[in-house]
């Protein structure tokens, strides 16, 4: 985390941890990252982890404005530095995360049983027209995704139900991401930079998995993973 920007998904938005070092270059690095993945960040709510970095209200305010011009809402600033906390308070930003924030990888139980995993969210409801889910990790839905609903995920998208809305897996450019659904009939399906629409259905719906193979977006029967 010392030289790179680290992004985690929370149920309230994204938590971005910034590296140490000269503020100007760190800030440019963050704005570059946002610009490069404009689609992923557009509309996102962001909390910044600044550790003990000292920032005045003017610098924080400028960053907030620059982020907001890329469609990113700065909602909280986490810091142990009193001046930075004061500046955040002056700007009306939160200084703490809500206590129900999900576990991050650091505080997962570390007993013998714990297996390494990745960040994912589980949505236990049907996503209806107008609903939108955006998450940097994997997204699982126990329910349907209706026409007019959207999911954007950094990783895989797994739908235990009917998929009829718009989904984008691997939105940060990960071509190994997949989209699985019991009934795969999306309005539009995207993986990384590949886009496809569903062919007209033939016969009964079967569980299918969409993936990128040799530069082509394809769907195949969704079966247990071998090997």
């Amino acid at each position, binding site marked *: 985390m010392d030289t790179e920007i680290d992004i985690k998904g929370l149920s309230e938005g994204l938590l971005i941890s910034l590296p140490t070092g000269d503020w100007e270059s760190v800030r440019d690095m963050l704005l570059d990252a946002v610009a490069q993945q404009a689609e992923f960040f557009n509309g996102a709510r962001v909390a910044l982890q600044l550790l003990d970095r000292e920032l005045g209200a003017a610098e924080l305010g400028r960053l907030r404005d620059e982020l907001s011009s890329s469609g990113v809402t700065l909602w909280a600033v986490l810091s142990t530095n009193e001046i930075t906390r004061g500046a955040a308070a002056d700007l009306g930003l939160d200084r703490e995360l809500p206590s129900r924030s999900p576990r991050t990888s650091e505080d997962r139980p570390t007993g013998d049983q714990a297996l390494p995993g990745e960040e994912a969210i589980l949505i236990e409801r*049907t996503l*209806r*027209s*107008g*609903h939108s889910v955006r998450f940097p990790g994997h997204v699982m839905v126990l329910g*349907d995704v*209706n*026409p*007019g609903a959207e999911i954007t995920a950094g990783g895989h998208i797994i739908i235990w139900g009917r998929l*009829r809305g718009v989904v984008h897996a691997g939105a940060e450019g990960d071509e190994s991401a997949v989209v699985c659904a019991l009934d795969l009939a999306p309005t539009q399906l995207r993986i990384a930079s590949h886009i496809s629409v569903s*062919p*007209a*259905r*033939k*016969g009964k719906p079967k569980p299918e998995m969409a993936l990128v193979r040799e530069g082509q977006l394809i769907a195949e029967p969704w079966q247990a993973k071998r090997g």
Partner: protein
Amino acid sequence: MTAKIVTITSGKGGVGKTTATANLGAALASHGLRVVCIDADIGLRNLDVVMGLENRIVYDFVDVVEGRCKLRQAMIRDKRLENLFLIPAAQTRDKTAVSPQDMIRLGEELRHDFDWVLIDSPAGIERGFRNAIAPADLVLIVTNPEVSAVRDADRIIGLIEAEEKGPGRLILNRVKPEMVRRGDMLGTEDILDVLAIELIGIVPEDERVTVATNQGVPIALDAGSRAGQAFQNIARRLLGEEVPFESLEGRDGFFGRISRLMRAGGEG
């Protein structure tokens, strides 16, 4: 008396919210219950026209909210049913004249005097819709067997769930049994498959509705009309009766479904 407050909404315009409100009001009142219908479509009022009471309006809903008259003065008694009332919308104002709190206050005031309060919601998902569902105990969603109407109904159901007024119940309006049978129209099952909420009524397309609406006579009072009968059945279901659903898809429903399936496959 403690009234139940029911809001009739749809998202999309023109699917039959106002017709449904007027007819459910008439059907409930014909059971001898005290019913008031509120037109929450401020600026585009037409429940008064459908109920044939346009020429009796003196005060409207915004006059009540802004304190220019008493609630009782804005209530218009129906021509045929003496226990059915209308509170008309203002024609010259817009939705911002009323807030959700105003609606809740009005609903609570009416609760004591009536058995049923029906609110006709405006189309859309903005302020007018939020006003209309604010006081509701139950929301009825009206849709037509068309892809765009179903899509909007889905959006509205999501918003109703978010306001914790959900899930609501569905009125499927203007169904043409003949077209469903031929596989040219979305069938009830297809729609319930997407919306996944409980059905409270299926109303067939009926030319007599247009005639009745233009004359300001509720079709629900016409015993010979299939649509009128369907509204009567919805009213009975609201009253807690178990009324079987009309079989609109005809006796050849099974073959109709098979041919629909084959057609869907054949398109691929």
